[in-house]
């Protein structure tokens, strides 16, 4: 029952898949749900067709590069009886390899899963001989790649399994075309082409998925990298931690300016104690940010300047005398308070609040 539910969920989410290459049975999509909780858990499914820019034009280019011609398509279609006859044996042979190694065996934890993926494998195999390699075929192959990537199957196992796959097919072909070696080798050549075509799609999916993850992490880091803190009424603080490259400097400037206007801050304290290296570039970014803040009608205070930073900045000849600078953050806060007309004073210890 659980499987059925998983299938429905995924089906609802991605309508076009229903029109994809037909031999795939219902349980195809359950591959995920049995091992990782499936698309229900993953919710977000990137459109690899879009990411990899796989349109009709690209499909044709790929087919051309793998030298897949109409002749190959016809030959593959004509091999359908061969495929029907041997699919079971070839699948068994493939899983013999996969189950023979602990690392790959781990992906098939129980009998039910194993039976399911074997059925999928059969339909995948038959798909190779459909003779129709249109855009839906490509979409389907991308889903195969995405499914493998999602369950964490490493490419080394994926490619290794293909190697065994080809060997098994070769063996059966020699049997099938007894004596007619040239026919067998032609058939194998065509099969190899379409298999490499498939593999390229799967590997592209792996890479795209990886890049996607990296991009998402970068976005998360960017968000975390500019935490503007309200120190006091109309005083903001931005502690800058880590390397400041151009992209980050732009982002810092944008955030600083937006926050200054939004919160109508009189003073923006930039604390660079956490910046490992302050070179001319970093100094330039800070100067520009300061200038922009001044244009808005506010001020910046640069704090966290260590002895070595002070030395470097002067030796580099960076002109930062125009800005307020302090060595310690606490001094910066005191200066900021004095700019907005406030002051930190000690409370009389003995009096216990008598002055109020």
């Amino acid at each position, binding site marked *: 029952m659980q499987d059925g539910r998983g299938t429905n969920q995924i089906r609802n989410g991605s309508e076009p898949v229903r029109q994809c290459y037909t031999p795939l049975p219902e349980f195809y999509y359950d591959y995920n749900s049995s091992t990782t909780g499936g698309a229900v858990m993953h919710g977000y499914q990137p459109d690899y067709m879009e990411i990899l820019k796989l349109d009709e034009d690209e499909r044709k280019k790929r087919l051309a590069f793998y030298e897949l011609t109409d002749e190959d398509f016809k030959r593959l279609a004509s091999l359908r009886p061969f495929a029907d006859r041997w699919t079971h044996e070839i699948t068994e042979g493939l899983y013999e390899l996969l189950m023979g190694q602990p690392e790959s065996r781990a992906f098939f934890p129980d009998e039910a899963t194993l039976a399911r993926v074997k059925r999928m494998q059969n339909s995948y195999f038959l798909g190779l001989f459909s003779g129709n390699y249109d855009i839906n075929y490509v979409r389907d192959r991308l889903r195969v790649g995405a499914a493998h990537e999602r369950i964490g199957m490493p490419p080394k196992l994926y490619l290794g399994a293909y190697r065994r796959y080809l060997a098994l097919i070769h063996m059966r072909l020699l049997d099938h075309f007894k004596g007619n070696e040239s026919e067998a080798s032609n058939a194998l050549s065509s099969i190899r082409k379409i298999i490499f075509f498939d593999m390229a799609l799967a590997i592209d999916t792996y890479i795209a998925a990886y890049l996607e993850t990296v991009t998402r992490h970068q976005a998360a880091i960017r968000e975390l990298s500019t935490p503007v803190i309200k120190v006091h009424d109309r005083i903001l603080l931005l502690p800058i931690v880590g390397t400041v490259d151009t992209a980050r400097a732009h982002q810092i400037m944008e955030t600083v300016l*937006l926050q*200054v206007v939004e919160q*109508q801050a009189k003073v923006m304290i930039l604390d660079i104690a956490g910046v490992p290296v302050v070179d001319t570039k970093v100094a330039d970014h800070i100067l*520009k940010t300061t200038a922009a*803040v*001044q*244009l808005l*009608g506010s001020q910046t205070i640069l704090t966290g300047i260590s002895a070595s930073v002070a030395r470097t900045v002067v030796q580099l000849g960076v002109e930062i005398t125009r800005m307020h600078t302090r060595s310690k953050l606490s001094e910066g806060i005191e200066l900021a308070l004095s700019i907005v007309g406030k002051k930190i004073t000690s409370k009389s210890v003995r009096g216990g609040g008598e002055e109020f």
Partner: protein
Amino acid sequence: MAGGPIPILKIGPTLLATIQIDLHDTVVDAFQNDVLEEIERTSAKGLIIDISALETVDSYVARTLANTGKMAKLMGTNTVIVGMRPAVAATLVRMGYFMEGIDTALSLEEGLELQKIRTTVPDTE
């Protein structure tokens, strides 16, 4: 009051110009003329230019506004530009244009306050 498209109002010793239309080159030139004539006519002590409605400011406009400020200074009038938008500030700075020597303020209210400070103690400088 001058005849240009940007009204220049007098509030006490201060002139206030709120720019609410796109500044083309000709408009900003006319504005500069109007402002200087108003200063001459009214002997205003301060000038506030509110650009909070401007989404873009090109380098020519920025330079003209800054120059207007400098010219006003020569006539004894202090200029404060108020309400610059973050995107405008970022663009100007990236173009290397810092509008040095011009006072700025976050809002009109603060501009008026700053103007008060500047115009009440002019002799200390």
